[in-house]
């Protein structure tokens, strides 16, 4: 069964194993929609972290290694962190809501 592998790919293996054990992954269950929402939250956070923040981090390190680092380049790259902070915050709120719903259903 591909269940553990697929969810591990979404960086949430321990929680998915627990969800499978508790029956939350049953597609007919009342919690299934909330589980899908949690996958979406993880997906958004993964895209932001791997597609925006990690490249910016490494580019800043390369810029700082230069003999004369350009502060404007560093500022421009670090601006990405400000832009994504709001989305990351929203995802954390969504995580809290999903966890609360799953615990009270």
């Amino acid at each position: 069964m591909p269940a553990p592998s697929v969810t591990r790919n979404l960086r949430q293996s321990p929680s998915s194993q627990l969800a499978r054990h508790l029956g939350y992954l049953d597609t007919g269950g009342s919690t299934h929609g909330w589980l899908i929402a949690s996958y979406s939250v993880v997906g958004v956070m993964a895209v932001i972290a791997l597609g925006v923040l990690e490249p910016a981090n490494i580019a800043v390190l390369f810029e700082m290694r230069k003999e004369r680092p350009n502060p404007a380049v560093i500022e421009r790259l670090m601006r990405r962190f400000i832009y994504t902070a709001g989305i990351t915050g929203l995802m954390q709120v969504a995580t809290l809501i999903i966890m609360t719903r799953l615990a009270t259903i």
Partner: protein
Amino acid sequence: MATEVQEERNGRGAEEATAPSAAAPPCTPLAMVALALIVSGGAYMASNIPHRVPLGPAWALLGCAAATMAANVLLLARSKGFAFRRFFTVFRWGLLAYAVSAGMIEYVFVYDGVRGATLAVLSGMLLLFALTVPFSIAFTVARYAEPNG
């Protein structure tokens, strides 16, 4: 006066302290779209378990992600004055790191008994994942490097 002193400390004039406005192709947004499609494919497959997963949408998402990355590579290849040497240096090391990561996930797939078309889709997604992230990192680094750097 204070500004001049600050500039002198920085070793550059005010005209130098600006970010290069190189007209680079939109590789970062395209890479993000590809990554989002890959992650969506993974979430789609996870949302259907433990039942049999209809693979049509997963193949479609994988195809769209592959097409997006192919367009990305084409756009970058056609751009002039780009620091390709720096790009490939960073890309190689990034690829090494993400190949190890993707290899470990692939091992888990096989270990958990994933076979056939499902394994093929997941392997394709992993392959694209292992290419997209290093591409994005290398592009971001090389964009601000000297063209011959």
